[in-house]
């Protein structure tokens, strides 16, 4: 989706967030990010791709990437919670389409911390977010090991 690095993407998001004075506006921005996520197909929204949280559910599906010199991670995601979906959109912007080796070591918690959203990862067992991060990282690790 992009040629910029995860760090550049993250900086853009943090800048965007800092434009807003109130949490209401930040959450509105986050929800809008979620609404702009590419939708999952019916087959992608399967039980296998579902991450159970005890509050909200997350779906995460990987999409094949055309041959690239280095393995690249491409994924889409969805959630029944608008805010969690917004957080998925944050991860998608920063990580999807990026080389696997960058994703494996990417500090997701640090990013959410900068955005003031790390509480959602702390609550991750409940909203499925931390499991999703683990799946994306596992995927990246697998793609990378295949390449070696």
């Amino acid at each position, binding site marked *: 989706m992009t040629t910029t690095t995860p760090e550049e993407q993250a900086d853009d998001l943090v800048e965007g967030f800092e434009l807003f004075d109130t*949490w*209401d506006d930040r*959450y*509105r921005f986050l*929800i809008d990010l979620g609404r702009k996520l590419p939708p999952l197909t019916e087959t992608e929204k399967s039980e296998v791709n579902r991450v159970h949280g*005890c*509050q*909200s*559910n997350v779906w995460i599906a990987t999409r094949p990437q055309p041959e690239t010199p280095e393995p690249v991670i491409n994924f889409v995601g969805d959630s*029944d*919670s*608008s*805010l*969690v979906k917004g957080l998925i959109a944050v991860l998608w912007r920063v990580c999807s389409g990026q080389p696997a080796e960058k994703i494996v070591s990417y500090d997701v918690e640090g990013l959410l911390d900068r955005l003031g959203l790390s509480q*959602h990862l702390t609550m991750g067992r*409940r*909203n499925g977010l931390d499991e999703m991060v683990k799946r994306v990282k596992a995927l990246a690790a697998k793609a990378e090991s295949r390449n070696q």
Partner: protein
Amino acid sequence: MTQTIIPVLPFNVNRVREDFPILAQKVHGKPLVYLDNAATTQKPQAVLDALAEYYTEHNANVHRAVHLLSERATRLHEEARTTVQRFLNAREAREVIWTRGTTEGINLVAQTYGRKNVGAGDEVIISAMEHHSNIVPWQMLCEEKGAILRVIAMNDDGELLLDEYEKLLGPRTKFVSVVHLSNALGTLNPVKRIIERAHEYGVPVLLDGAQAAYHVPLDVQELDCDFYAFSGHKLYGPTGIGVLYGKAELLDAMPPYQGGGDMIRSVTFEKTTYNVLPFKFEAGTPHIAGAIGLAAAINYITALGMDSIADHERDLLAYGTRALESVPGLRLVGTAREKASVLSFVLKDIHPYDLGVILDQQGVAIRTGHHCAQPVMDRFGIAATARASMACYNTREEIDVLVRGIHHAQKLLG
């Protein structure tokens, strides 16, 4: 033992609030509105003081040594047991077993009474509105023994179908374990009738009192329940302490739960004999400070008056029900005629998690999710609810803040 006479003052919620230091704080710059009491309640200064005093002045291990501190700690620990006995109106203090909480109390009964008395083909009855902690211990027992778990169904208001219950009772029934007050729906169950019918078949009944114990005046002799389990932390007391009440004749006949110190009379490598009640079920050093803190909590709410607290909470429930019903797109889950203190609801097109996050920004603490009662959610065809639950220190104004917060969330998320 002479009964301590505690004067009951007229209930004044603003004065009550002053007893709970945590309530004075702001969260996200807004005054804290704490409506997650069904998860745990806040602690009054009297409990905080009791804990600090115990560790500052009396700390020692109980039932062990001859020195003065141990004697004091032992006396306070056993006085706390007597306080619980009076609170429950149990016949004897040895019918009060210290546990870590409701969950441990239920597991204790399932693993001792249950393992001894439930066999292949026997049946255990629970209800459709149980917390996971009153489902899983019985499921584990039934799996081990080849017994069958039966479930009392409920109607769309969240009321148990007593006709169905009576059909479930029979010669194979060996135990009944039901919740007194539902954490997910707020239903106050007709437990006296449930117990009477079970006793006609000679079947003992355990009540899960985790939610009821701090809302409903209790009298285990009047209820004639065989076991009653509750947690200290929901009753304005510390976490990690709970109580299992059991009729002495049943407890006496039960095998011990865990092995260790204090639960034995004598130990040789060939044979161990067990201690008498209540110590038989209290292996290891107990949560001494917790027991003392729980007694302080019980003294505190007894001084407020359980009836006064129940009246105040009834008013909040009625006020809150009317206020929430006026919110467009809101549906209450759990509309039983007999209810207490819990308002569980869903909003059209808004996920409970999102509502919880937006309310938190307004300073309002509620619980969202399945409330450890997934079968209840399945029964109502929903994945989760938002739940506001009230305690003695909540006010009508706080319910107004909740309702304004919901309107705000609807604007933001709609």
